């Protein structure tokens, strides 16, 4: 399938359904993310945003429907999911840094074990990325000695170390103290400027408004509205969206 420019989407889900037992969490979602596009997914808690994101890199196995990445369907038997996942970076709400490894080793582990990059080269890349997220001085620290904002920036560097084609963010600032939200958003803004393809589940409407090419509103397992930010925030498509936006500080 192709997007409006005739190019293959970076990621596409088609008729995606996901149930946990009896509970249907995604009720037939279609979404294509173009190369270089930044999509912000918003919606009430429990609406299925994380599940949608996690289906994209198959951390959750869809119950039915298709997931495509760079022109190949990936939720098929026989697909090497590890090869797919190493091209999709993921950043989690609770960081999920490896506590037993130093910051530097967090950023080199997958490079050496998955990409089979040599140790020196992996460390060089890790140092460059840590410098980029402003944590060059912390390379020998263990994650538990870092603030939440620092942890999340290390997690971003860890994902970037794999040279991913797309970055998936699952509420990257929701677990942070307010004063640390900006440093993480600034790092994400920089990725946007560099043209990274990004799918970001977020409640940060300021970020969504300035950074996203498209806002996707998910409610009760379905996409109920999507539009570029100006239109989405300027003239909300439905009462449901308006009601949601009113409750969120912007």
């Amino acid at each position, binding site marked *: 399938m192709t997007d409006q420019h005739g190019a293959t989407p970076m990621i596409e889900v088609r008729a995606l359904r996901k149930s946990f037992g009896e509970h249907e969490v995604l009720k037939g979602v279609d979404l294509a993310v173009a190369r270089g596009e930044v999509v912000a997914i918003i919606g009430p808690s429990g609406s299925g945003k994380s599940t949608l994101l996690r289906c994209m*890199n198959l*951390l959750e196995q869809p119950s039915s429907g298709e997931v495509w990445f760079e022109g190949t369907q990936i939720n098929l038997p026989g697909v090497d999911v*590890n*090869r797919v*996942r*190493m*091209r*999709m*970076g*993921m950043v*989690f709400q*609770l960081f*999920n*840094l*490896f*506590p*037993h*490894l130093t910051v530097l080793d967090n950023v080199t*582990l*997958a490079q050496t*074990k*998955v990409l089979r990059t040599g140790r020196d080269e992996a460390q060089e890349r890790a140092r460059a990325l840590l410098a980029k997220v402003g944590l060059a001085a912390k390379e020998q620290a*263990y*994650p*538990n000695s870092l603030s939440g904002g620092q942890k999340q920036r290390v*997690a971003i560097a*860890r*994902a970037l170390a*794999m040279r991913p084609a797309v970055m998936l963010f699952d509420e990257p600032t929701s677990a942070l103290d307010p004063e640390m939200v900006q440093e993480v958003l600034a790092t994400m803004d920089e990725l946007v400027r560099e043209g990274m393809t990004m799918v970001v589940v977020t409640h940060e409407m300021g970020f969504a408004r300035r950074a996203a090419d498209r806002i996707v509103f998910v409610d009760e397992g379905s996409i109920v509205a999507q539009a570029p930010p100006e239109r989405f925030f300027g003239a909300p498509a439905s009462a449901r969206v308006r009601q949601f936006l009113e409750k969120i500080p912007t």
Partner: protein
Amino acid sequence: MTAGLQAVHDSFPLLLHGALVTVEVTAMALVLGAVAGLAGGLARVSPLAPLRGLAAAYVSVIRGTPFIVQLFFVYYAFPQLGIRVPPMVAAVCCLAVYSGAYQTEIVRGAIQSIERGQIEAARSLGLSRAQSMRYVVLPQAFLRMLPPLGNEFVALTKNSALVSLVTVQELLLSAQLIISATFQNFSVYLTIGIMYYVMTSIVSTGTQLLERRLKVYV
């Protein structure tokens, strides 16, 4: 009392030798038991149901029967099938299998105590299931295993006294031989009690020190 001291003094080389055998039996059983425990623990969390079942059955049977029955079964019952097992081999293997069952549960519990997010982060970076286990889960799980493993190693050291019942001349059997010649029950049992206590103290202090050294990141 002086006769007792004299008996202990005269037979001390024999007691030391017995203690050495105890250490040998315990150390070999500990290493083999740790291998069994790691294999069993990994099997318990395997995605393959038959492997999980096998490991669960192992733990259930071994923990559900007395050690002494297991030991006698191997030492006295196997010969009826034409399999003669030397006492030392029976001792080490039975202790290892017995301890391995407990270690299996320790390993399983520690692996399952590692947050799901750790595996998810590892998998999201492209690490395979096995690599995630090897580089992310097990190193963290190992630290959580240490306190219960320390207890298990102490239990193993104490259980090793039971192999005296299949003629392995370790510390307890050495003591009994000395007593049968000197009748100095009090001094000799007191002495080996102290010797066992020293051994178990070394084991538990050792695991505590290891834990403290590995805990740098917490």
